[in-house]
């Protein structure tokens, strides 16, 4: 079965790679400018002035908008996850390739859990706009804090290991 899929996909390897790389770049960078230049200055202003009644509505607004900023990222990510295994099969790759194993370990151990959490917090139960519309402002504030915790603990790892998987894929150092 895998052999049949591999033989069928093999002539399209470079086209699948094109989709994979394009989606990976979109996944990595699509939210970065909004995060760095819009969300972060506001969140830092809030953290320096946690009770400022003029900053809190802007914080709420920015975070609600950011729930939508990540839509592109969350469209690209499943494309990466589908085209990755397609390339693996079509290219005849195996588990003996160190750079690829390390890349997959990072994706499976770090990025998939992060993205599942991010989907939930941005579009499902943690969506700030819907929580606010429900009128439960205690839950809204708790969701806001939880999302900020999420950014705090994931941002360094996403940047460092995100860059590392791009390095592994391009330079193949091991």
């Amino acid at each position, binding site marked *: 079965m895998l052999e049949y899929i591999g033989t069928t996909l093999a002539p399209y390897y470079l086209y699948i790679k094109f989709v994979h790389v394009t989606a990976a770049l979109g996944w990595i960078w699509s939210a970065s400018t909004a995060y760095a230049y819009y969300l972060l200055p506001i969140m830092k202003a809030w953290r320096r*002035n946690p009770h400022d009644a003029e*900053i809190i509505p802007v914080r709420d607004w920015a975070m609600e908008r950011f729930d939508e900023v990540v839509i592109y990222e969350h469209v690209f990510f499943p494309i990466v996850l589908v085209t990755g295994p397609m390339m693996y099969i079509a290219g005849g790759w195996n588990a003996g390739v160190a750079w690829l194993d390390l890349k997959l*370990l990072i994706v499976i151990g770090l990025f998939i859990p992060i993205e599942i959490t991010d989907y939930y917090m941005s579009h499902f139960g943690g969506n700030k706009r819907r929580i606010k519309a429900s009128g439960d402002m205690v839950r809204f504030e708790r969701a806001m804090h939880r999302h900020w*915790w999420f950014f705090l*603990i994931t941002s*360094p790892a996403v940047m460092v290991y995100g860059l590392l998987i791009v390095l592994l894929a391009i330079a193949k150092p091991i």
Partner: protein
Amino acid sequence: MEFSGTPKKYLRFAIISSVVFNFYLYLGLAAVLFWHNGATWLFSWKPLLVTVVFTIVFARVNYRWMMRLDAQYGTGRGWTLESRRLKLPERAIRRPDKN
């Protein structure tokens, strides 16, 4: 409601997450390569040293990064806060049609 993040929690998280994740990568890679190729080069001292050094460096980077994100470092003098009267565009809540 006060935000529950503190420098102590960030430090604890940075150390534990760096140790757990980097050793997961090291052991995972070593196991896969040993299982598939019979390769043993990852069990020598050099890859282990690289893992230990990277774990220490990443724990430090992670902690300082979290502290910077959470405005625990710096004075914020690069930004000024200006009061404005403004209107923020909000998405309308869509209600299902009753028809």
